[in-house]
């Protein structure tokens, strides 16, 4: 661990009062950021705090709405679409930008192949690739196909690519998300080595322990605002977690109602495993709102999809009111009274070309079938009712779903799922991308359903939402259930500790 602060080192890249809006929604508010030569700088914040947007702006993939970017103290306009690489600014994406069918050497020299008399100088390029890989201490074969490499090795190739282009600034977005502990250690040694030679790194990660271990300074963003920049050595994980969270809950949420302790268990999940999720067990009682928290990619959606039959289960059982439900049959699960509402309303929830009625009744057509044919009157009655119940506001009844606002789409999706009249509803990201007013309506609706004796599982990346609604919260981390929190334990700091791996608890 390096405690030395590279004070006084010249600033390579900096952002001054950067703001950014996407179609009228502001995501960055006058953010300052400074990257010194030869430092590893962590960029931290909750999901949606604006980290990715800032990284994209500093690497030229997005242009700021206002504010300026300085490279070596001079104001610059970074060229778009990766052309900033020529200036020595490289971004290593979460999903690698490597063509599977090229060799390592070909990947390294893609787009700037060395030629002699118009013919590729393959010998030189191979030798140069070897030199860079040796420099990194990597044993990857320069003639290997990229597709045959492990994820860690691919990452190595990405870094070699960055080095071979004389990168001065390297952005790494969640680089360790897919690496094992040993691979992570190797990566960190490499990054430190390059740092000592003067390369600057921006390290975007949710993992507090790694940030503490690797980085020299930390910048925390919250809700698109700059909160603090500080040497890592004077902070601890707790302090960073508080900086990331640090806000009060508002009256957005209805009063919580907790189910009685002896209330019937309506859903029991026992040792469920999929490819990524391992050995998940939990219970839901009648009238309970159970929260599922955790980082993006912690396996929450995968677990829920396995429960409702959208994904195959490798092991484990699901019981609804004591009755086992079969794996892989969404329709049967619906009939058992369990319904899942996807977080991806545009790609998986609604038929965007179809009208409200076709969408509303799609999952529950059996209810509108009489003697084998659909009864339009019954469907229309359902639509009238749903529009009143969920307050779906449209000016034209024949509008197609794709033209409705995000909030109305979300209400329509909720209405569609509720048409199956489920007793247990799993709502994945209930309020993604919708305005505050609609959020509040949806929260109150969820609360009303629980008072009605139904059970709800709320999967959400927005911690205030989980805390404001739920009487118990399951925190997932890397495919495991890291802990189940109840009562006073439910706080953003505590959830963050479990989600970041600072704390663990076996299922209660």
């Amino acid at each position, binding site marked *: 661990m390096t405690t030395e602060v590279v004070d006084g080192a010249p600033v390579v890249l900096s952002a001054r009062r950067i703001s950014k809006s996407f*179609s*009228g*929604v502001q995501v960055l508010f006058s953010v300052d950021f400074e990257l010194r030569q030869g430092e590893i700088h962590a960029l931290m914040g909750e999901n949606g705090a604006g980290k990715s947007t800032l990284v994209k702006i500093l690497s030229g993939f997005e242009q700021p709405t206002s504010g300026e970017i300085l490279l070596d103290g001079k104001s610059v306009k970074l060229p778009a679409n990766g052309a900033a690489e020529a200036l020595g600014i490289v971004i290593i994406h979460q999903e690698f930008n490597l063509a599977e069918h090229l060799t390592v050497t070909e990947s390294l020299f893609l787009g700037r192949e060395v030629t002699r008399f118009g013919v590729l100088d393959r010998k030189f390029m191979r030798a140069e690739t070897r030199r860079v890989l040796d420099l990194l201490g990597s044993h990857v074969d320069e003639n290997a196909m990229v597709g045959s490499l492990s994820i860690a090795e691919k990452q190595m190739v990405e870094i070699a690519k960055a080095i071979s282009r004389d990168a001065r600034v390297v952005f790494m977005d969640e680089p360790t998300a897919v690496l094992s502990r040993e691979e992570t250690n190797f990566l960190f040694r490499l990054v430190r080595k390059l740092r000592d030679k003067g390369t600057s790194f921006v390290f975007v990660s949710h993992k507090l322990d790694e940030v503490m271990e690797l980085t020299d300074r930390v910048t925390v963003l919250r809700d698109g605002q700059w909160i603090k920049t500080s040497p890592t050595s004077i902070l601890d994980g707790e302090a960073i977690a508080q900086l990331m969270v640090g806000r009060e809950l508002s009256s957005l949420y209805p009063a919580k109602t907790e189910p009685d302790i002896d209330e019937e268990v309506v859903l029991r999940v026992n040792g469920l495993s999929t490819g990524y999720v391992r050995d998940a067990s939990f219970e839901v009682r009648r009238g309970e709102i159970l929260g599922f928290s955790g980082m993006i990619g912690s396996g929450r959606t995968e677990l829920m999809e396995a429960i409702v039959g*959208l994904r195959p289960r490798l092991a484990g059982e699901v019981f609804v009111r004591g009755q086992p439900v079969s794996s892989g049959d*969404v*329709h049967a*699960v*619906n009939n058992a009274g369990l319904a*899942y509402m*996807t977080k991806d309303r545009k*790609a*998986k*929830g*609604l*038929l*965007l*070309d*179809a009208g409200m009625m*076709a969408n509303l*009744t*799609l*999952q529950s*057509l*059996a209810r509108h*079938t009489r003697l*084998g*044919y*659909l009864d339009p009157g019954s469907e229309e009655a359902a639509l009238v009712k749903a529009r009143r119940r969920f307050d779906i*506001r*449209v*000016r*034209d009844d*024949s*509008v197609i779903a794709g*033209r*409705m*606002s*995000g*909030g*109305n789409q979300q209400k329509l999706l909720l209405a*569609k799922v509720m048409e*199956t009249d489920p007793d247990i509803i799993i709502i994945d990201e209930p309020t993604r991308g*919708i*305005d505050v*007013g*609609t959020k509040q309506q949806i929260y109150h609706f969820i609360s009303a359903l629980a008072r009605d004796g139904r059970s709800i599982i709320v999967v959400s990346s927005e911690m205030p939402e989980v805390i404001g609604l739920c009487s118990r919260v399951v925190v997932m981390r890397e495919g495991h259930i890291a802990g189940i929190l109840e009562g006073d334990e439910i706080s953003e700091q505590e959830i963050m500790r479990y989600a970041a791996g600072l704390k663990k608890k076996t299922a209660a």
Partner: protein
Amino acid sequence: MSVNEEGSQGVIRRRSWRDIDLRAVAPFVALALLLLVGALVNPNFISINNLANVATRSAFIAIIAVGATFVISSGDLDLSVGAMVAFIASLMILFMNSGVIADPALMLLAAVLFTIVSGALCGLTNGLITTVGKIEPFIATLGTMGIYRGLTTWLSQGGAITLKEPELQEIYRPAYFGTIFGVPVPIVVILAVTAVAAFILYRTRYGRHVVAVGSNRDVARYSGISVNRVRTVAFVIQGLCVAAAVLLYVPRLGSTSATTGILWELQAITAVVVGGTALKGGAGRVWGTICGAFILELVGNIMLLSNFISEYLIGAIQGAIIIIAMLVQRSLVRKS
């Protein structure tokens, strides 16, 4: 509510003629224009006799295209229908020639059932290869097209297969040449098949599922619809429609050969697309399909009755029609 809403929902509009879906109306407008052109080219064209003739001749393609509407609406494609017609027709004639049942009426009944089952099985084969085998429908049905065609050539030993029993021919003939209340049987069959298909597509759960699957498979899956079953059944419906077309085709000539139904898949797909069904799935228009089939036949008829285009160009014209239909469809989508 949100700022986005203003932009995405556009201006308030009264219900007016502009609300009519142009894509649904376009094929009927084209049909009307074509009738007008035909009348100008040759006065005989507009006679009831000629038009009934045209409609009768369009029966095979129209009925097959109704099935294709299901397959295409669910997001798939079936290239094997032309070869399937030849194959099933061969099977049917061979079955009737086998003489396993002495009574001609009973024999005919058995042959009809046999044909329907054969059609369903051929469709089921296509469906299972695409869904269970997870092979692109284009490739899967390209393969079965070769298989059905090859089997036909083998069954006929490169020649023709002809219905031998004269008595059987006699009682089967009216199925194509007869009339019901003065309307030729093929036209009655077209209308009946289309009416049933329209009912299934617009008024049953299965029809809704077809459109949902064609529109977005993920949404369908997340809504608890068994996507593969819906797709497979669409191929079976296509097979049944091919069988219906065969039941009309065999009494017409009483004979098939290895060249029966060549390029019918192109004509069927053209009829579907001209009729306003989106080739990428998600919107089925059964009556539009019938209209498309009439248009194809009318174009051929006009070319025959007029003297300024050689009728040998008919294939080229039909090929051009499908391209023009796609262009029109796309420009209408952009406008809406």
